[in-house]
């Protein structure tokens, strides 16, 4: 039944030729079937009845001939040409119809209407216009038969044939047009589907390549990488993490970070740092932890998806043991050297002062001036050593911020005490003001704030030849306050502005050297401000002066960022 259904089904999407061949096959099958029935029936009649044996045998031979014709046409249709087969079939039908009945019946009787069948079929099997050809052929056939038996040609029938051909032509034409359009739509749909499929396949393979590449990169990174989701469950870790932590990968992947940091190899102090990192959600760059004998540097970064949604955190662990050791040695070395240098310098300073103060008898002006110069140069040297020591401590993460209550007025008072003389020595005015909105007391490290102020004012004095230096403490917003130190000095070229905070970097080497700079002051200020969770920026115009503006939190709960670095 299924096969029968399939046999009778003609897909509109089939190409024209195939479709027509299939229709022809169906018709051939029908005709063949009828012929077989006729053969069987005539054999039965010949065997059982004595009546009309001549006519019955005629039907038998006619049916056998039809069956043979059907097979021949099927073969032509199958092996050679659908068009030729269809043409043959239609001619064959006409022939069969012409001889199936008496000529009278064929010309104007019961068989006459059979001839309409090939005309109609021609429009479907061959082409719409071929129905006219078969109308012509049929007209010739019946006219010839009519003439041969002495009848006049049946003109109304011939007109009828052509009318039928016209109607068949119209309907077959519109059918073909509809089919053509359908086919065109199908074709474009197929094309779209093919294109989409191709694109999908390409993007899939691209993604596979990308994923493979990312995986390869992740696997070949020497640092240990763990990716956490928002709940701090480790979703991914690279093989290097095994070597860095010296534990099996199973203890890391699919485990919560809080479980991992309970591991006994982690120093208690480092555990606190990591817990603080999870709780605060802040991601300082490169703080250190102690993992048994190793020092690891930890960098954490938030991971965002395409919609800017936070989907977790990626943490990179780097074996920092050697570097940490070198840093420790370096800072110890710098510490010792600084101490050993400072003591004799203190002695030089003291002796020079004693000369100047004429402790051992009166001095002339030149001698006093010389003692003064010895003192100034010694102080410069001491300043340099202090900066180097600060820098070394900062790099070793040893410089800490001790937050306590600070009175703003005290800050300015001691600043004036320390810097007024330096300013007046260069005939500069050092002025200051406190924004009335600023609270009298705030949280901060008084010594470090003092260091920042003195450093900035010192710089301002150094680079200002006339005019004034103004210090302003102000309320920035609800949670932050600010320090602004402005001068009327030479200013900083715009091209140099962005690296004046770099370590050992100086603007215009010659000018700075003549003014006794050494390129560490601003870098240290910037790092100190960073430790206090603050920001520093600079505004400057060549020839008009510079302004350094620092903003700091009003109340800091014991400077968190200072703790991070303090390993």
């Amino acid at each position, binding site marked *: 039944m299924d096969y029968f259904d399939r046999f009778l089904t003609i897909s509109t999407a089939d190409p024209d030729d195939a479709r027509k061949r299939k229709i022809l096959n169906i018709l051939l099958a029908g005709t063949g079937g009828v012929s077989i029935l006729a053969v069987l029936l005539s054999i039965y009649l010949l065997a059982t009845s004595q009546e009309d044996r001549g006519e019955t045998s005629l039907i038998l031979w006619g049916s056998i001939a039809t069956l043979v014709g059907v097979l021949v046409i099927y073969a032509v249709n199958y092996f050679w040409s659908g068009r030729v087969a269809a043409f043959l079939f239609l001619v064959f039908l006409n022939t069969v119809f012409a001889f199936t009945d008496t000529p009278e019946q064929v010309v104007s009787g019961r068989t006459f209407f059979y001839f309409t069948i090939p005309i109609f079929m021609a429009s479907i099997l061959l082409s719409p216009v071929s129905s006219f050809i078969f109308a012509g052929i049929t007209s010739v056939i019946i006219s010839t038969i009519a003439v041969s038996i002495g009848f006049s040609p049946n003109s109304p029938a011939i007109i009828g044939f052509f009318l039928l051909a016209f109607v068949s032509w119209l309907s077959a034409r519109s059918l073909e047009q509809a089919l053509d359009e359908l086919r065109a739509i199908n074709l474009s749909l197929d094309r779209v589907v093919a294109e989409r499929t191709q694109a999908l396949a390409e993007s899939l393979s691209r993604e596979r390549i990308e994923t493979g590449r990312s995986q390869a990169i992740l696997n070949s990174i020497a640092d240990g990488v763990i990716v956490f989701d928002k709940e701090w469950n480790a979703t991914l870790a690279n093989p290097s993490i095994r070597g860095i932590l010296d534990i099996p990968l199973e203890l890391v992947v699919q485990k919560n970070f809080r479980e991992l940091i309970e591991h006994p190899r982690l120093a208690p102090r480092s555990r606190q740092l990591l817990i603080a990192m999870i709780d605060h959600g802040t991601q300082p760059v490169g703080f250190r932890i102690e993992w048994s004998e190793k020092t690891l540097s930890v960098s954490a970064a938030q991971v965002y998806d395409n919609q800017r949604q936070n989907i977790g955190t990626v943490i990179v662990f780097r074996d920092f043991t050697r570097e940490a050791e070198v840093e420790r040695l370096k800072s110890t070395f710098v510490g010792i050297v600084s101490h050993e240098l400072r003591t*004799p310098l*203190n*002695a030089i*300073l*003291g002796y020079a*002062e*004693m000369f100047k103060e004429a*402790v051992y008898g009166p001095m002339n002006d030149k001698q006093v001036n010389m003692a003064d110069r010895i003192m100034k140069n010694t102080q410069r040297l001491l300043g340099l050593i202090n900066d180097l020591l600060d820098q070394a401590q900062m790099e070793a993460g040893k410089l800490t911020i001790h937050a306590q209550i600070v009175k703003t007025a005290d800050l300015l008072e001691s600043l004036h005490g320390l810097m007024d003389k330096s300013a007046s020595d260069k005939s500069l005015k050092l002025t200051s003001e406190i924004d009335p909105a600023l609270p009298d007391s705030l949280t901060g490290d008084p*010594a470090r704030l003092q260091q920042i102020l003195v450093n900035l004012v010192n710089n301002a004095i150094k680079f200002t030849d006339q005019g004034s230096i103004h210090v302003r403490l102000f309320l920035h917003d609800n949670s932050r306050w600010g320090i602004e130190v402005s001068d009327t000095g030479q200013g900083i070229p715009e091209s140099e502005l962005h690296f004046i905070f770099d370590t050992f970097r100086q603007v215009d080497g010659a000018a700075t050297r003549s003014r006794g700079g050494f390129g560490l002051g601003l870098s240290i200020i910037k790092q100190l401000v960073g430790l206090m969770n603050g920001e520093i920026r600079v505004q400057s115009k060549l020839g008009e002066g510079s302004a350094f503006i620092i903003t700091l939190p009003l109340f800091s709960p014991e400077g968190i960022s200072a703790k991070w670095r303090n390993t």
Partner: protein
Amino acid sequence: MSELALIIEDDEDLANIFAEALRGIGYTVEHAADGKIAQERLRNGTAPYLILLDMHLPHISGANLLAEIKQDERFAKTTIIITTADARMGETYGDQTDFVLIKPISFVQLRDLTNRLKPKG
């Protein structure tokens, strides 16, 4: 009679400068060059009017000496000035002493301070 100042300082030059500053304004000066000498001097000698104590000393640290001084009734009236190069150490011991001077210490600064500390009249 002039007031007695004890300078506990291992660096000879600094001790010399401090001594000159104090002598210049009328103090009688004694010098202890390390922690051990200082400890013996403190235990056996008379209580000074003023002690200049370096925190970084050989043998016995300034911190230990300070603890001993604080426990001894004889030094109740003695003014103690800590001298140190380490600002953090200055912060730590600031509460237990009268003054903290961070090195480098200026001759003039020390002279003026100790001059003010002399008994009035």
